[in-house]
């Protein structure tokens, strides 16, 4: 498993072999508040780095979920669709969103390390 990487749109990604697992960050869930709806990409579709790949809605508003890396969707996490509150409870663990067969492993180089992301998140909140 690769080190976890982060996007400016508040997604996280880990890569094992050529499959990436993607979710939204704890910081994102804190900004969103209580999540009550999640929509995931369909299996078999291709998604492009920084393109939309889902939606989450809190009691307050809807937000797009972007993919930090390009590829083909090979799995989605139905349990967060059935119970969206899981996303608030464990955003960087069990509540992953989707898995991709990675198109270009080099894309990960443009993403942030945890330390960089935490600094970015803190600055973007202030």
């Amino acid at each position, binding site marked *: 498993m690769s080190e976890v990487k982060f996007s400016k749109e508040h997604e996280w990604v880990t890569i094992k072999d050529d499959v990436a697992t993607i979710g939204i960050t704890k910081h994102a869930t804190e900004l969103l*508040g*209580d999540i*009550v*709806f999640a*929509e995931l990409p369909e299996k078999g579709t291709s998604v492009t780095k920084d393109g939309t790949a889902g*939606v989450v*809605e*809190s*009691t*307050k*508003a*809807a937000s797009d979920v972007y993919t930090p890396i390009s590829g083909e969707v090979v799995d989605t996490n139905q349990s967060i*669709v059935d119970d*969206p509150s899981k996303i608030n409870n464990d955003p960087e663990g069990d509540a992953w969103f989707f898995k991709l067969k990675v198109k270009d492993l080099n894309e990960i180089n443009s993403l942030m390390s945890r330390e960089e992301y935490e600094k970015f998140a803190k600055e973007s909140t202030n």
Partner: protein
Amino acid sequence: MNKTALYNLHKKFNAKFVSFAGYEMPIQYKDGIIAEHNLTREKSGIFDVSHMGQLFIAGDVKLTDKLQDIFPTDLKNLSVNQSKYSFLMNENAGIHDDLIITKISKGYMIILNAACKEKDFEIIKSKLGEDFKISLSKDLSLVAVQGPDSKDLIEKIIPGVNKLKFMFGGDFKFNSNNIYVTRSGYTGEDGFEISINNNDVVKFVETLISLGSNLIGLGARDTLRLEAGLCLYGNDIDENTSPLEANLKWAISKNRINSNFPGAKRIQRQINEGVTKLRVGIKPDGKIIARESTKIFDENNNQIGKITSGSFGPSVKSPIAMGYVNNTYTKENTKIFLEIRGKKVSASVCKLPFYKKNYYKGDINVRS
């Protein structure tokens, strides 16, 4: 940006603030909207609604006559300390504001929406003329305490309030200063609204918190009122909707329908001929949420209306919405379609409220 007298207390309790009607108001505290919503339904919640306008008009019988020319409400038969929900309307029966009129010993107190209060003040003042003293308070805060435990909590610091019935009020004391309390609110729960001097409000709210009540933000206030089927001014009603279209005919006193208040002619016409659009409850199928401005279609893809409020209802545990549909689509269980992010999602028209109201109307708690 305006701040209420409770601003620093909100801050102390880790409020997230939003700008609302020119005020910096708490949208939620640290536990979030759903937790706050549930606390209000199950225990007790405190809402700072000091941004709302508290208008006082002094006068006697002459004032009652004059106000009846402005509002569609039977004020002559209102007893002292009784409140009624009413509207300030334009000549076309469009709603300038929805408000609560309470008869008090010296005249009337009217609670106005924050975004409308200055405009309402000017309209009412110009209609009243020079004969009556009218003032929009700057010294008073307004706090709502809502939920089933509220009556026992508040009785400990304001003895006697638990005898008030829904939509009645009275003069009480806190900290040996005068306060005015009504049994009312906008959550669908039993509760109270307390008009209290800015200098006393922090201590009042801190006392309630120490007794076990909880600060609740505007986010939960919105989900609570939506579940109770109550309108948010600016979303569900505005200057282009009449009380009849908004399904609020009950708030126009029967013995006033043929009177001469602003908008009366259109109201009479709509009573006789019906309305072309009506506010209804809407339940999307599944979990998707339909927000305000979502377009509503029939099964032949004709647009038949628009959503005016929509969110997730934490107590009903599903998405809920209200909106206006053409008059042939208002029946319960009518199948409709909502256009959300380019896709058509099925939904049904349903009865309001989504959550049964629980008001105290006397010896028994009436669920209506």
